[in-house]
């Protein structure tokens, strides 16, 4: 469900794309919004948002809920796991309707016939193999890989040396740093808002269930449809783009945090919370010693996903247009977006590579060790 949001986001973003002078427009809600932005038509944007909401709702009800409920039968272990999944109405409709089920049976029988066809190698026939020959070819293959790697390295190095001035690479790294600062500060902001709220929601089972459904729905919504609304505000009040374009990148990603915090808080065993009440563990002490460690493994999952989403959204959000007004914030996202507009393939390449490097570094040096620690030390059971 969560990844669907990313999918929608990119589709909406990429339906109307212009690289240099080539403009590719696919019919769809994304290009519709693109046109609306060009024509400063706020009503059209509202209509697009409404339409998208309806589409997501339908598809949540007709596709995802039934699929998710049906998939519980493949869950290993734990029987019902204490979770009683309510049968979604559409799944019930599918299961109960006689016409559909007879059609389904026919389909099933056909599929079974196909799956029983004898294809591929029969099991149990030993493949002739000579281990010595395998060893030689293994080494040849490895040697080949090393040569290709070195050649690629050389080509990339030469290309880089010929194309980019060192100063530019440094400049782009600085821009990347600015964007990283944005991503991290927005994560912090979203955490400050959603962690306490998520905990409050998650500690009550009824509230938790409702909130989780709502958060799921919000998370599935492509947030970039809302961007123009913000941009209109920024243009209207003449605000500084460097600051005010920043929240856009967390608009869609914040829900990952909320969703996971709720899940974490509602999975805390009731007896642990009773121990706290019994021992008069309250206030900041309670948050620091009990609650935050307890939800940390869940929170980190959400934060990593949100960080990924925010990096992704940076390209779409650091540069925004409204009619003939273009807002640009300083940052790697804007750099890539502008390069794309100009059709400068060298700059696009540089920006993308540096973004990849930064995200990878952040993952290995920050998120991975943190998650490992949480899994080792903080996991319940």
């Amino acid at each position: 469900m969560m990844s669907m949001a990313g999918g929608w986001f990119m589709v909406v973003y990429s339906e109307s794309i212009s690289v240099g002078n080539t403009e590719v427009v696919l019919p769809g809600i994304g290009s519709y919004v693109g046109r609306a932005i060009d024509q400063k038509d706020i009503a059209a944007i509202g209509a697009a948002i409404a339409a998208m909401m309806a589409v997501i709702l339908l598809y949540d009800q007709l596709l995802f809920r039934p699929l998710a409920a049906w998939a519980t039968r493949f869950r290993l272990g734990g029987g019902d796991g204490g979770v009683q999944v309510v049968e979604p109405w559409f799944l019930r409709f599918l299961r109960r309707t006689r016409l559909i089920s007879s059609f389904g049976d026919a389909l099933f029988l056909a599929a079974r016939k196909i799956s029983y066809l004898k294809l591929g190698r029969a099991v149990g026939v030993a493949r002739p193999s000579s281990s010595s020959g395998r060893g030689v070819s293994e080494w040849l293959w490895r040697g080949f890989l090393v040569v290709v790697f070195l050649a690629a390295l050389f080509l990339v190095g030469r290309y880089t040396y010929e194309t980019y001035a060192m100063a530019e690479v440094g400049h782009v790294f600085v821009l990347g740093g600015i964007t990283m600062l944005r991503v991290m500060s927005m994560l912090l902001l979203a955490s400050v808002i959603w962690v306490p709220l998520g905990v409050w929601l998650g500690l009550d089972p009824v509230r938790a269930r409702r909130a989780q459904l709502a958060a799921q729905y919000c998370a599935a919504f492509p947030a970039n449809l809302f961007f123009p609304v913000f941009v209109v505000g920024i243009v209207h009040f003449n605000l500084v783009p460097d600051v005010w374009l920043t929240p856009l990148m967390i608009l869609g990603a914040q829900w990952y945090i909320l969703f996971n915090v709720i899940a974490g808080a509602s999975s805390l065993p009731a007896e642990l919370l009773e121990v706290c009440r019994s021992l008069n563990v309250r206030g900041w002490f309670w948050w620091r010693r009990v609650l935050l460690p307890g939800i940390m493994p869940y929170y980190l999952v959400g934060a990593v996903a949100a960080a990924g989403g925010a990096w992704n959204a940076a390209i779409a959000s650091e540069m925004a247009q409204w009619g003939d007004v273009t807002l640009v914030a300083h940052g790697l996202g804007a750099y890539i977006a502008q390069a794309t507009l100009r059709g400068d393939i060298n700059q696009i390449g540089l920006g993308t590579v540096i973004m990849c490097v930064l995200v990878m570094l952040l993952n290995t040096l920050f998120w991975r060790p943190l998650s490992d620690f949480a899994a080792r030390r903080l996991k319940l059971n």
Partner: protein
Amino acid sequence: MEFLTQPSQAMPEGTVLAEARHVRQFYHKDSAADVQVLDDVNLTLHAGEIVGLLGRSGSGKSTLLRILAGLLPPTSGEVLWKGQKLAGPITEIAVVFQSFALFPWMTVEENVALGLDANGVPASERDVLVENAISLIGLGGYENAWPKELSGGMQQRVGLARALVVRPALLLMDEPFSALDVLTAENLRTDLIELWSEKKLPVQSMLIVTHNIEEAVLMCDRIVIASSNPGRVAHVLHVPFAHPRNREDTAFRQLVDHIYALMTQRAPIISEADLAGGAQAAPLAPSFRALVPVSITMMIGMMEALAASPLNGRADLPVLAEKLQLELDDLFPLGESLELLALAELEDGDILLTNEGVHFVLSDLEERKAIMGHALRHYVPLVKTICSTLDERPNHAVKAERFRDELEASMSPDYARQTLQTIIGWARFAELFDYDEESDRFFLEDEAGE
């Protein structure tokens, strides 16, 4: 006979510590009427005594413990602590939980110190208290271990140390040994009683909630027996033995037998007579009783063991429990289920097979299924209702949800689910009807035809 209790440091023996007065507790349910968990419970805990609260599942004993701890406000009635109304948890009352409830991200020492840290005890004092509690309870050397590195017994020792370190006057224990294996549990019980007898525990009174009769007789000065659905105080017994007690002692065995007999006394529970034969399900709502998960194979095993040669159809429950290596919470539901189906009878702490039960044991599988089917239809109102509904329906299928809803009118959703699950297991054995989990429906195998 000597009546031995433990006078404690601060309070003269017999001083009233906690008192529950007319406590009622309802489980609130939004759809149907509230389900009553506790009914007019009165209980007094004195300084210097260990009280056992003995009851079966459904007797609300854990609920009562939470009410006494101030963790749960009673629906009506009140709890007094040293004469004052108890409004919430206080540090003078500490709780030990069945699941240990340790924090996996704190070391043993940090877990133990939690109550002191939360209440701002100065570091030097805290360290002394923690060290004392840890060595008292036999955790010395484990200070820096993580809970997951410890065995169950050691984990529960941490739970005990954490409760004792705040020097509570009353220690409430919710089935503290039932998650442990037999040897570990016995070891921990003995250690605890020894500390109590030597007056080394910083508590004045303990309440142990348990379903284990021997455990209660082994440890307690007074045993309160609770009846089920809703929970009430049925009997109060004094245990007149000095510590350490010997399980093999004749008087000990007699008291255990006596309690078995008290607990198997037939409660006025709804039988099929209340169900005046009608096929309509709707008006039957409050008359269904909760069934504990008892599998067919265990029932058959028990009947076969009963019928076999040394017992010949009749056995003393404690003896049978030992022979079959069953805990009380397994034995009672088994016996009661057999009684419900009229395959066995419980009488004065004994269990005996009925004629039908003997017949069952001697039959082959097909015959057994028939006997079970007959018994289920006759003695389990819910099965009867489901069967007749299925017969009426043209498609021979019915949503299980409606029966679950009906059950929930008189029990908590968990019990309702459990009851339904038990019934499904039994009915499948007897081939009365089947259940499709996916669509949550009961249905008849198509021998009925369409």
